[in-house]
C-alpha cells in the first residue's frame, strides 16, 4: 500500500477500574495516541464480566493503540510487567498507518 507506514497495533482488554493506571503507564511510555472503547463485556480467567448486570457490574475496556515499530518494544517492556496485575489480555499485530491525519503516534 502506498503512503503508509508499517507499525504495531496493540489491543488491550482490562477492567475499567484499571484504566487510569494503564493510561498513566501509556503516558510514561510516551505514547501519543490511543483509543478507548468502554462498556465491553467478556469472558476470561476470572469468568464472565458484564457491565449490564445491575448488581454485579464488571466493565471491561478495549484500548487500541498504534505506534512505530521502534516504540513498540519500549511500550511492551513497560506493559508486560503491569499486565500481570491488570489481568485481561494484550495482543500485538502488524498494521499500516495511513498517512494523512495529524501525526499522533
Amino acid at each position, binding site marked *: 500500500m502506498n503512503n503508509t507506514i508499517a507499525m504495531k497495533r496493540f489491543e488491550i482488554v482490562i477492567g475499567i477500574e484499571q484504566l487510569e493506571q494503564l493510561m498513566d503507564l501509556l503516558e510514561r511510555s510516551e505514547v501519543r495516541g490511543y483509543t478507548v472503547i468502554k462498556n465491553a463485556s467478556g469472558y476470561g480467567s476470572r469468568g464472565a464480566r458484564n457491565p*449490564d448486570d*445491575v*448488581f*454485579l457490574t464488571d466493565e471491561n475496556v478495549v484500548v487500541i493503540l498504534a505506534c512505530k515499530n521502534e516504540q513498540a518494544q519500549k511500550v511492551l517492556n513497560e506493559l508486560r510487567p503491569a499486565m500481570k496485575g491488570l489481568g485481561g489480555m494484550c495482543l500485538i499485530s502488524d498494521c499500516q498507518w495511513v498517512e494523512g491525519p495529524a501525526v499522533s503516534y
Partner: protein
Amino acid sequence: MATIQPVVLFFVFGVLAGVIKSDLKIPEALYKSLSIFLLIAIGFKGGVSMAKYEIMEVLPIAGSMVVLAAMIPLTAYPILRFLGKFTQADAGAISAHYGSVSAVTFAVGVAFLAAKDEYSEGYMVLIMALMEIPALVTGTILARAGAGGQKTQWGKLMHEILTGTSLYLLLMGVVIGYYAGAVNLVSPLDKMFMDLFMGVLAFFLLEMGLLASARLKVVAAKGVFIISFGILFPLLAAFFGAYLGWLFGLSEGGTMLLAVLYASCSYIAAPAAMRIAVPDADPALSLGASLGVTFPFNIFIGVPIYWEMSHWFHSIVV
C-alpha cells in the same frame, strides 16, 4: 388480615414478565435514577419527622439498635457454616447480606403503615442507614478470621461502606429533611419527595420483579437449603427485632419497622462491599438468596407477619 397493597402488584407483574419472557425492559438509567430518588426520599421523610424530636434523646436508642444489629450476622454465620456446609467465605458474605438492610423492603413497610394510618418513629430511617456498618464489618470478620490467603483490604472496604451510594444518599436525605423541617421549608420539596414516593416505588418494584425472577432461577439451582434459609432466617431476625423494638419502647409501627429492618437483607450495598472484602465468595449465592427469595418473601408475607409480631408484643404487656 391486611389487604395486599396495590404497589406490590407491580412486583408481581415484574416477575411475571420475566416468566413469560416478555421483552419488557426498564432502562438502566431509569432504574438508577429511581433508586437515587427512593434513597433520598426515604431519608428526607425520616429527617423531616426527626425534626420533631430532640436529637439527643434519639441517639442512644438508635445507637443501641444499630450496634445490636451485629447480632444478625453472628447468628446467621454458624447456621450457614455448620448446618448449610457453606465455605467460610460464603457463610460470612451471606451473613453480611442478611445483617444489612433493604431500603425498598423498608419502604414497603412504611407504605403498609401509611395505608393503616399507623404512626412510626421517624428516626427508624437513621437506624436503617447506620445498620449497614456493623453488619458489613462483622460479616467480613467472620469471612476472614483465621483464613490465610489474600489480606483483607480494610481501608478500601471501610471507604466503600462509609461513602457507598446508599448510605450517603440516605444520610443526605435525613440531614436535608431535618433541616427543612427545622426551618419550616419542607413545602415545595415535599411535592417531589413525599407525594411521588409511592409512584416511584411502584416503578422500582416492577424492575425488582424482573431482576428477582432472573435471580431466583440461579439460586434455585443451588439447592433447597439456601431457599429455606432465605425464608426462615428473616422470621427469626424479625422476631428479635420486634422484641428489641418493644423493649426500647417503640410504637407499634416503629416496632414493626425494626422487625422489617432486621428481617430484610441487602442486594445493593452488601454485594458491592463483599466483592472488595471477600472476593472469593460466590456473589450469585448471596444475591440469589437475598433478591430471589428473601425480598419477595418479605414484601408479600413477611411485612404483614411482622406487623402481627409487633402487635403481639405490644398486647402481652398492656
